[in-house]
């Protein structure tokens, strides 16, 4: 469909995008607003007299939370890729007995509401004594990503030509060697997609953090924001500054890997 007036469309597109992104702008604006101007009516629409007091508070109070989230995010990515990639290779190329049933279970697993998983994990972790630990939270967070990861990897690896696998076999490579030296290097794009989404989900997780890691010394950034909201209701510039900082991974992801993002969204939903 070509339009007669592309110029108009662009203008309308910019306006719509501006409306859509207004809350994001507002978050940044509030993060730069002085505490004394916070209750001003009407509020300043632009950061006329910007202050960095909110960001100073982030640096002094939230760094441990950010570090914890980083570790948890990276740990979840490693665990998820390590579990999902071999399984996907088998599902795509080795055709194990019961592979179809496994794919079905993975689809279903994605639909379990987080609160239910959280409750089950809580009961188990309490017995094991691993509440409020980083490994515990990494395992819980990985459940957000593993089924998605297997399905994405399988979709991608199905596209690898069988001749390539056979050639490796003829050269004497075993299944593991083929997987490591042939399949994984080709699958780099899908590894990037899966890693990005996994990191983002682990980074954004709140329900597991608030149920399984609400009392420990090392808590993720979502708990940092949550505590801010609970404790000092007045300092919204600090809350919003933390929110801005917590949004950085999402922004990086969008800038660095835009095409992977759209691919991930559609692949997860439409294909299997």
């Amino acid at each position, binding site marked *: 469909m070509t339009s007669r007036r592309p110029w108009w469309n662009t203008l309308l597109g910019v306006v719509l995008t501006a409306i859509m992104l207004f809350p994001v702008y507002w*978050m940044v604006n509030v993060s730069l607003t002085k505490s004394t101007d916070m209750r001003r009516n009407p509020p300043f629409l632009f950061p006329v007299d910007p202050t960095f007091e909110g960001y100073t508070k982030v640096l002094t109070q939230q760094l441990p939370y950010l570090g914890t989230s980083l570790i948890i995010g990276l740990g979840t990515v490693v665990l998820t890729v390590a579990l999902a990639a071999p399984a996907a290779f088998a599902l795509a190329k080795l055709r194990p007995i019961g592979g*179809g049933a496994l*794919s079905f279970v993975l689809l279903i697993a994605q639909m379990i509401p987080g609160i239910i998983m959280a409750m089950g*994990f809580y009961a188990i972790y309490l017995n094991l004594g691993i509440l409020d630990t980083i490994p515990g939270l990494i395992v819980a967070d990985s459940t957000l990503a593993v089924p998605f990861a297997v399905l994405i990897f399988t979709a991608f690896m199905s596209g690898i030509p069988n001749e390539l696998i056979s050639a490796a076999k003829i050269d004497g490579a075993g299944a593991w060697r083929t997987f490591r030296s042939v399949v994984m290097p080709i699958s780099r794009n899908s590894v990037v997609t899966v890693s990005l989404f996994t990191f983002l989900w682990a980074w954004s997780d709140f329900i597991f953090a608030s149920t399984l890691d609400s009392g420990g010394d090392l808590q993720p950034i979502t708990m940092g924001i949550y505590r801010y909201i609970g404790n000092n209701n007045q300092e919204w510039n600090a809350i*919003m500054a933390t929110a801005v900082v917590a949004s950085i991974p999402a922004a990086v992801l969008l800038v660095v890997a835009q095409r992977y993002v759209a691919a991930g*969204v559609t692949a997860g939903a439409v294909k299997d």
Partner: protein
Amino acid sequence: MTVTQVRTEPTSRGEQVGAAQSAAPTPRRRPSHRARSALVAWAFVAPVVVYLALFYAFPLIRNIELSVRDYTVRSFIDGTAPFVGIDNYLAVFRDATFGPALLNTAAFTVLSIVFQFAIGLALAVFFFRRFPLSATLRALFLVPWLLPLLVSASTWSWMLNSESGVVNAFLEAVGAGQINWLTSPQFSLISVLIANIWIGVPFNLVILYSGLQSIPEEVYEAASLDGANGWQKFWRITFPLLRPVAAITLLLGLVYTLKVFDIIWIMTRGGPAESSTTFAIWSYRLGFGSTLPDFSPAAAVGNLLIVLAFVFGLLYIRMQRRLDPS
């Protein structure tokens, strides 16, 4: 699944080939070879299977166990939790919160999906005109979906704040009165709906856009030759051809929306009173919302939610298979 159907074919063909080539070097070694490769295939899959059993099946079973016993904090320590059968479920059904929670869950889910879908579709059709900058703007539309839910929820909380929120400032500027978005029972559900629709639009936009891309250009060209206008093209071509993708988008939206917890909990905690309490919120509040947790009813509410999610989940899988009939 497709995998199983594809698998049977080469196997039977392989057997025929094996039977035909009776003079082939070592036909007897075949079964053991195949058994070996099946073992290798399973070695690759085994970690995920163990993982699913430990970290999906076990928590789910634990959850069912919680719901048919009377668990308290003490139970976890001394291991005593009397079996009570379906009492927890009966108590949940009789609870005064059940009616409002059911209504709120239904309203929240249906309205979220209807608006997310309608706005997402309109935007997808709009961006499909491929004007200058359209790809960049479309990418920017993804931002709300990528932000941590907690970030979006707290931003909306402050925007909808009664005294200092920018939304009320805008309403006052145009002459409308103030609205107590988060603190009045009439508006709390609407407030969380607005935030949730905002978060869900990008997802709908991206999927529906990819659906539009899969409609062949020639169909539109043929319609143009027949003199169809833009409106007719949309209703006679785009809409019917988009139906399978649309159905999947809606069902996925349903499954996701039933799960929504973060946004409501941060913005209203399900209140005031029960005015924005959904099943997910109710379950969390029973289990973790107070210093005296009620794990067993919480698990019962959670299990009701999972039944709902599964019904729609199975529908989704059926739809998806019909879409991809290989």
